[in-house]
């Protein structure tokens, strides 16, 4: 199952803290799509997921300027 998380209104450290908490709650077969803004979250969200042993499948620009979608596999 694929879950969505929007952290575009969050700031450090809650961008990657909320991502980690969401990932911890997922089942091993689940994926998480995280919407982030550029700069700090775009750098720290994939980094924190990788550090926790999860796989970042893709980082793509969305239709909204300055907003990216990060697809993470548990």
């Amino acid at each position, binding site marked *: 199952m694929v879950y969505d998380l929007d952290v575009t209104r969050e*700031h450090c450290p809650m961008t990657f803290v909320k991502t980690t908490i969401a990932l911890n709650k997922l089942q091993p077969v689940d994926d998480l799509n995280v919407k982030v803004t550029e700069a700090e979250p775009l750098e720290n969200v994939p980094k924190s997921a990788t550090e926790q042993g999860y796989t970042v499948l893709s980082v793509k620009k969305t239709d909204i300027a300055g907003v990216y979608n990060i697809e993470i596999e548990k």
Partner: protein
Amino acid sequence: MRIMSEEKQTKKLSIISFSGDFDKLTAVFTLATGAAAVGYEVNLFFTFWGLDAIKIKQGRSPVGKGFLPKVFGLMMGGLKAAPVSRLNFWGISPKIFRFLMKKNNVATLEELVDAAKELGINFYACEMAMHILGIGKSDLIPEVKEILGVASFLKLSEGGQTLFI
């Protein structure tokens, strides 16, 4: 805030939370949650006024055994009564900070504490400070893993980074 020891980089962060001030506790929990979210083992050691952050009763309450500890407990209060370290203005400033944090979508102190619990950060309380302030384990939140002394804290923080806030 100062770095007490800086050995080779390991994935462990231990913080001695000494101050019960709102701003310093915010720094403690911001660093702790951020580190835990990137895979660090995080140990928080609460001592003296830092113990206010982990009391069950978050407002002003005469927590403690004996007259003087009860007076201290009532004057200091818990997490929701924490003053800011500068320009507290009789408790008005923490309310303004909470308003500004919410307005700017920055995590409040309470949200950071909740995140710390969810991330499985280790909470420890100082045995000596609890003894002075007449505080028992039943006065503290259930997430407190253990009551420790200096030797035990040094052992569990060994090989990581340690901060005193």
